[in-house]
């Protein structure tokens, strides 16, 4: 098993009801697997389906980009940004 840290921001934080969680995954799991798991664990995230991206260790992933995960990775749910 591998554990990754998952951060929620803005609307996703409100929907998930938390700003952070740790998720355990099979070795070799990818960000796609994580996505499915998150929707199961936090069904309210459905409101944001297709309207957020992941970041992996402080780098954005493309909307359909799939990356392998490893222990200790930091993934964040990134709703549309509105800085500035």
């Amino acid at each position, binding site marked *: 098993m591998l554990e990754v840290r998952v951060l929620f921001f803005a609307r996703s934080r409100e929907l998930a009801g938390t700003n952070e969680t740790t998720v355990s995954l099979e070795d070799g799991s990818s960000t796609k697997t994580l996505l499915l798991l998150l929707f199961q664990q936090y069904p309210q995230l459905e409101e944001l389906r297709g309207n957020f991206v992941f970041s992996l260790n402080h780098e954005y992933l493309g909307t359909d980009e799939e990356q392998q995960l490893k222990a200790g990775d930091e993934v*964040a749910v990134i*709703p549309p940004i509105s800085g*500035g």
Partner: protein
Amino acid sequence: MEQPGVALQEGACYAEVTPDALDQSKYVELVADPGAGAIASFVGVTRNSFQGKATERLEYEAYIPMAAKKLMEVCRQACSKWQVRRMAVAHRTGTVLVGEASVVIAVSSAHRRDALEACHWAIDELKATVPIWKKEIFQGGEVWKENEE
């Protein structure tokens, strides 16, 4: 929920995410340079209305370590695309009342065109790339904003 800020300095570039009120002159002074003949700066301020609704305040939330990193990237890219002497970018987190600054950019260069163009490019790039979110609190509700970028 107020997290400590982060300030990064890499050569001529300075990037900061902070919960504290932003003072534009601090960043203008930061980019002062004897070789600079021009200093361009931009301040993003909380407006009293948005799409006809009276804004009460804005709440900013940042993925702080990644936001600081991305602000630095904006800075460094501007420094490579233009003849910039020094540049500083700072974004505030937490509550920003009407009239208060949420973002400050300051750029110095020998000739004015570099500073002016880099400053304009930087605020556009920031809005497109920095993981910061703005919730608008207005009379009767609140809504998370989305930049066009």
